[in-house]
């Protein structure tokens, strides 16, 4: 269809046509099926996209509310099995073996669609020992985190972060706990703060920010963050791998 038609559609929807132009436009709608179909699509697109972009912020806020409610009302089976969407689907032993091989190699053969968070969320163990006081909380936090009990870990880390000011590593791990618990707002705040600073954890925080976007299925944002991770970073390889999947 000619470009003029689209300008005409736009003018018609904006009520910028003269009375006689409207009549001939509507006549064409009635007589030309192809013209009509394109107009209908154009109009639906206009409504749909307007609604989408107008409500982007509201949608984010709604999702936050829903995530919070979801983690409050829907309890995980048990904390160890909690993650691993793929593994739990393939409970059959033969599949388990195949799946782990595939994971080791780094090709996610079982997942042809969009990459999922659990494919990339292998956290480094938390090792806070040799840190002076607060031993009890440190050990509790460490044990809880390393056994994937993120709720408890978060509690202990919060205690720790209150006594040791500005410990970036503790902040980062708090962020990971929030991310695991689907409390995205808090997680993102932490990752943003660390990644914009110049601590040794800045790149790690960017990587987690990307994972958070991935988990929230905001793939464009995820890609964007991944591209900010420099080649020198330890996370560069994983970042490139994930980028390729997106």
């Amino acid at each position, binding site marked *: *269809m000619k*470009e003029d*038609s*689209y*300008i005409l*559609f*736009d003018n018609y929807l904006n009520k910028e046509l003269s009375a006689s132009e409207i009549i001939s436009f509507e006549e064409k709608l009635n007589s030309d099926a192809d013209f009509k*179909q*394109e107009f209908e*699509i*154009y109009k*639906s*697109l*206009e*409504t*749909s*996209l*307007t*609604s*989408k*972009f*107008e*409500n*982007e912020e*509201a*949608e984010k*806020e*709604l*999702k936050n*509310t*829903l*995530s*919070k*409610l*979801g*983690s*409050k*009302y*829907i*309890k*995980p*089976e048990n904390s160890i*099995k*909690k*993650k691993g*969407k793929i593994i*739990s*689907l393939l409970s*059959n032993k033969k599949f388990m073996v195949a799946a782990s091989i595939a994971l080791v190699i780094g090709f996610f053969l*079982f*997942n*042809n*669609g969009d990459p999922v968070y659990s494919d990339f969320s292998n956290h480094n163990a938390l090792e806070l020992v040799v840190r002076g006081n607060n031993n009890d909380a440190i050990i509790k936090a460490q044990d809880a985190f390393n056994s994937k009990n993120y709720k408890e870990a978060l509690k202990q880390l919060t205690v720790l972060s209150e006594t040791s000011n500005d410990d970036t590593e503790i902040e980062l791990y708090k962020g990971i706990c929030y991310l695991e618990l*689907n409390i995205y707002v808090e997680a993102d705040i932490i990752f943003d703060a660390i990644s914009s600073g110049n601590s040794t954890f800045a790149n790690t925080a960017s990587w987690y920010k990307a994972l958070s976007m991935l988990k929230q299925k905001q793939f464009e944002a995820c890609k964007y963050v991944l591209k900010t991770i420099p080649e020198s970073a330890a996370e560069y390889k994983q970042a490139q791998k994930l980028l390729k999947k997106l």
Partner: protein
Amino acid sequence: MIQKPHEDHIYIEALLKNDSRVLSKIYEKFSHKIVSYVRNNNGNSDDAQDIIQETLVTIYHQAKEKNFILTCPFDAYFYLLCKRRWLNELKKRGNNRVTISDDTTSITEEQEQQVEETEIFEKQHQLFESKFKELGAKCQELLKTTFKIKSMEKVAEILGVTYGYARKKKSQCMGKLTQLVKDSNEFHQLKAY
């Protein structure tokens, strides 16, 4: 056609207002059944949580864009939507070893119709979104700005082009998008409804 809202329409309004008090009732009252269904069919509670959230966000969009009115009880409508979404998800994951324990929920024709309406809405929404992403970066940016900021004068100012050029570009990009949608397979499937 004037539709009389069902009393459960409060849940739709709660989505529109992001009213966490009423929304928590949805989780309290209806999530249990969905979680059991997903768990009994090769999923876990995380999956169930995703399914529930995605379904609610879809209903939100439909209400926002199309003034969707719920005319039947929320329970069966919501359950059926979540259930079908989970079955689709399983298909996507290529899980062929599915044993579907189907519970015989009786649903009325009206409920079925509302479910279908929501599903068609979502398909269209997804189609538009995916085609939008096929546009060039310039078009995407222009359209995004256009739809966010209503006034084309302002859009032109922000993008540093003349008003006339912005208008012309906008219809060109929309035209391109219209073509992409029109030529897609999905569109022809949707048209069949």
